[in-house]
């Protein structure tokens, strides 16, 4: 296909004398502002009304738990692991850490149980060093580590910004309960977004 790029020289608008004398430029501008004055506000009054992040939102990390919806790869790896129903799916493969641009933010420890199986003992993530890039999610072979829609993670100390195995599992469980079956749509809270966008006709 040949190029269709065109070049266009821009005209420079000028102020005519009528506009100058009667302040038409000001008046037009002020008309716009007053028009907006009577428009509805678009504000989300945050603590009172909250936007639901889209399903793809990359918020605080979480672990999916073993709940019967695991991908096939998990079942393959399960034989080496000791994971009970409702526990984190993590198989301590360290892939997330490998994939992460800042690997030091992970602190994963696994222990060998007497029966020869492995168990994840510790899974700390320091969210203060995370880029929220989602590479770890893409890397996890068992669909364990995910990123949830939780963002209210401000804390008073650095320590509280580190997440641990148990609260990650909890968050993951909670997230899946709420949103696992949601379709992969751009947003889910259309009414809240309507404020900003107006009604959108979905095809």
């Amino acid at each position, binding site marked *: 296909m040949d*190029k269709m790029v065109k070049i*266009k020289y821009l005209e*420079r608008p000028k102020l005519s004398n009528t506009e100058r004398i009667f302040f038409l430029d000001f008046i037009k501008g002020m008309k716009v502002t007053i028009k907006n004055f009577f428009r509805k506000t678009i504000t989300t009054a945050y603590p009172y009304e909250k936007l639901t992040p889209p399903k793809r939102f990359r918020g605080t990390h979480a672990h999916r738990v073993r709940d019967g919806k695991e991908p096939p*790869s998990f079942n393959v790896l399960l034989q080496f692991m000791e994971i009970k129903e409702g526990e984190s799916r993590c198989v301590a493969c360290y892939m997330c850490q490998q994939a992460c641009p800042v690997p030091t933010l992970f*602190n994963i420890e696994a222990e060998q149980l007497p029966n020869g199986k492995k168990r994840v003992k510790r899974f700390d993530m*320091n969210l203060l060093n995370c880029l929220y890039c989602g590479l770890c999610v893409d890397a996890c*072979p068992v*669909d364990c580590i995910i990123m949830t829609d939780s963002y209210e993670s401000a804390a008073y100390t*650095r320590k509280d910004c580190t997440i641990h195995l148990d609260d990650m599992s909890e968050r993951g469980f909670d997230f899946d309960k709420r949103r696992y079956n949601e379709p992969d749509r751009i947003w889910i809270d259309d009414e809240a977004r309507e404020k900003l966008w107006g009604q959108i006709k979905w095809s």
Partner: protein
Amino acid sequence: MLWTKQDDIAFIGDNFESLKFVDNEKLPYFEINQNELLPFLKEIKENPNLQFKMFIDFTVADYPLHKPRFQGVYFLYSLILKKRICIKTWAENERLPSLTGLWKGAKWAEREAYDMFGIQFEGHENLVRMFMWESYQYYPLRKDFPIEGIKDTYLPSLNEKPGSMPSHDYEEYHTAIPTMEDLEETEKKRIQKKAQIVLNWGPLHPGTHGTIWFLFDLEGEKVQNCDIILGQLHRGVEKIAENVTYTQFIPYTDRMDYISAICSNVAYVNAVEKLLNVEPTEKAKWIRTMLCELQRINSHLLWLGTYALDLGALTIFLYTFREREKIMDIIEGIAGIRLNSSYIRIGGVRLDLPEGALDVINHFIKDFPTKLEEYETILTKNRVWLKRNVGVGIIEEEDVYNYGLTGAVARASGVAYDIRMIQPTDKYDEVDFEIPLGTVGDSYDRYLVRMEEMRQSLNIVKQCVEKLEKLKDDKHIATDNPYVLPTLDETFISIESMVKDFNLRIYGEQAPEGEIYLSGENPRGELGFYIISKGEGRPYRTRIRSGAFYNLQIFPELIKGRTIADAVVLLGSLDPVVGETDR
């Protein structure tokens, strides 16, 4: 192809004995001895048949085992041939001749090389540190400098105790931090007071668009002399690039030009794909083009808002942010994060477009022109706006080449330099758009050009949406390529994918040895990536040619003789983003 080959300059070749041509497939370059460099560059700049007048980039690569150790790399662009040229030269005794006599644009690039590698430039007027402060002792981009720096300062946290921290987080020793005296020395080195008073404008100032530090030598309110201190956001991105894999670097490109994250992503990923010989899928290309243009609108909106805010039109700022919010919503819905989306992956995009995305974008396309109209009503013909903008900061065409200005700044001066046109990537060669050009080159033209660009971008987005509606079932990432990470679904079911994923994650994309320079048209100008690969999983050197860095360079020239009030106009119309200038 866009690169100058031997034949193109054969007719002057005989005059320079040491000129060597290396015909790499990806980046053909010339090599020349240091002593012949300046005459050669002068020749190709001034030869009427070549006219390599436009300065693109200069950088240095460090080869510790080679003697001499440093290699300077020059990129120029010819207006006649419409081609770039790459010239390399070895720096004997860690010295190189300065190019500032030929191109003013080389000034900062050379200072940066001095700052990062410690190379001396003969004939440079004021060779001081570019990013680091004056008493900093090291040259960070040298290969033997550790990425985390030399930790020699005891600097514990004030409200955290080491014991209470997770072990992997916290060290009490820290790299050097300048004292106030260091900073004072830095500022005194930059500018010699000639007029009455030297005013620091920035870095932590609401009007400087981030942390740029200006020194104005004022006579009354008139700026007699000006210098810029950069490096208040120098995060060492180029150093990081050498230490992470190609994929892992993608999120960092977001954080350079954080206002147009996707554009930077695309520019980088395109360069890497070229290096790795990966061809993204059709759909991915369209998605990229669409998101790039959305992002361009987004970025120009931020520019318009802050520009208007700086000029006192407080409300426009909020209006543009309303529209930005919409684009951010779209990007959040598609990519998952509003700002630094890291959505582009090598070989495609991270996830397929979600359901409903195109509807929303369609909606946006319909809605946006009326909003744009509103901004124009308030601003374009407003007498105050005209008074503040017309005739302020006129950039001549000659200066555009001289300083290597790109992007809207160049186009406002009537230079049709647009990467989307001269080296189209993705689907830019299949969409229909116009390149707006200014006629005078003042701030007002830059304003008009950007406003027009928004319209054109919208036009492109429209075409992309139409196309994408037809491409519903295509794949969004070319996972069959050995360098492309498999998607999650593939990993879950096939063991080969899992192994491939494993290998790529751990060893990185082992790119074939070679080099590449590829650029993209960022909203702020040409964003070029010069990547040297040595066949490892990580790049040997990544140089980022940032548009804003070069665009900002003309600021001291423009502000001379004007007032502080004009400084905001000029800065706003040059539209730098510090994340990109400092990297």
